[in-house]
């Protein structure tokens, strides 16, 4: 398939596993167990947060709450896209007040989604600290935002797309770079 020719593998399933383990341990080392909570940004961020939770929980011996965040209503490009983007529900099953929160997303690019996520999170209360984890940092930041935990840094062109596939949602697993058709 033409599509396959345009796709380049960046991280294998095994790379992903090791990277997530590393980041989970880093988080655990730097956090206060009682207050730690993960918030995944829809879609892949939520799956990644669930995986990190599964790694940390045996270490902490207690449940790490995971929240789901949709940034749709906080986007800064409202009125610039042709149609209204569908929004999904934010579900934070814990009180964010005083929590040590790690925001989890799959790819950081311009930083605008994280900006929206931070605002969305702040509207829900006042966490004691917010850190940011991203699996991939592909550069091209447009806002002064830098993740605390980065899985893999890669150089990309703006026209390229970074695709993260996770077994929970996709047929395959791995990270790819795709040449955009145009």
């Amino acid at each position, binding site marked *: 398939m033409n599509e396959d020719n345009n796709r380049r593998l960046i991280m294998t399933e095994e790379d992903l596993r090791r990277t997530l383990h590393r980041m989970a341990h880093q988080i655990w080392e730097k956090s206060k167990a009682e207050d730690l909570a993960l918030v995944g940004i829809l879609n892949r961020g939520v799956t990644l947060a669930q995986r990190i939770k599964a790694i940390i929980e045996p270490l902490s011996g207690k449940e790490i709450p995971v929240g789901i965040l*949709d940034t*749709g*209503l*906080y*986007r800064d490009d*409202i*009125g*610039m*896209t*042709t*149609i*209204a*983007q*569908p*929004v*999904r*529900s*934010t*579900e934070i099953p814990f009180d964010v007040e005083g929590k040590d929160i790690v925001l989890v997303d799959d790819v950081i690019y311009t930083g605008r989604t994280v900006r929206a996520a931070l*605002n*969305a999170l702040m*509207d*829900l*209360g006042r966490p004691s600290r917010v850190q940011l984890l991203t699996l991939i940092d592909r550069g091209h930041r447009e806002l002064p935002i830098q993740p605390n935990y980065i899985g893999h840094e890669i150089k990309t062109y703006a026209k390229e797309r970074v695709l993260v596939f996770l077994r929970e949602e996709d047929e395959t697993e791995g990270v790819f770079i795709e040449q955009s058709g145009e």
Partner: protein
Amino acid sequence: MRVWRRKDCLGLRDVSRDEIELVLDTARTMKEIQSRTIKKVPTLRGKVAVLLFYEPSTRTRTSFELSATRLSADVVNIETATSSVVKGETLVDTAHNLRVMGTDVIILRHSITGAPHHLAEHIELPVINAGDGTNEHPTQALLDMFTIREHKGTLDGLVVTIVGDVLHGRVAHSNMWGLLTMGAKVRFCGPPTLVNPQMKDMGVEIYHDLDAAIEGADVINMLRIQKERMTRNFFPSIKEYSRIYGLTMERLKRAKPGVLVMHPGPINRNVEIMSDVADSDSSVILEQVTNGIAVRMALLYLLVSGEKESSKKLDETPPLFEEING
């Protein structure tokens, strides 16, 4: 992916199942916001919503106002007491004035049937119908459907009985179109003077006997009876109407267990609905009010957050004067 491509929300007659589901799903997200301490998101910051009401309605206006405010839009309220036929500035001219003042969406309630449709054809802005004459009141029906779906999980196959002035009832009309599209069975019940037999052709069942209409119903939606109708011989007296078409606890027993009792409000206690029914566990009347905000937020979001260019472009402004031949 389900998306909203319409410029306006004028009615539910030609709205698809996908579109209705999109609104209801979006409304679920909006409802979550209402449970927060800070009941506000910045989504429509800098946008201006105008509530243009040619007919008084505290409830609908407040609901729209709160919806827009919670999305951080600025709201302008225009309530004109003038009756529909008073000559003056036309609706379209008024709306164009509002447009050039920077309005992003017009929410229109009008006593004239089809007024929002007329406006929508003549202006690039999204128009939301907040009730037009005897035609439709789409946001009320959407919030009714949202409430039913929250309780019953689906609308498919449910029996929904709508009781009252179906002839003039825009809530009834919008519910009819929406519910039929969503696969519910719709029953209309009321005196023959207020239920048009042609409704049957649209796929609803017509009842004049309330007990029969309630039998096996999953939802009973009681419409507010307008006392003005009495003077036009639609029924002889409120007392008689209430006796024949008022919903009592006794009658409610004929419905399915877990029946929902709804009312678009404001209710006439002990007229179309007995006080104890309105306050009973079956009643979801106040939930409807809460959900109204979520549904209206959803619609505002879907209509306003898309780019203007997606709006139906008017081919061209019609010339003020047309040339006469010859």
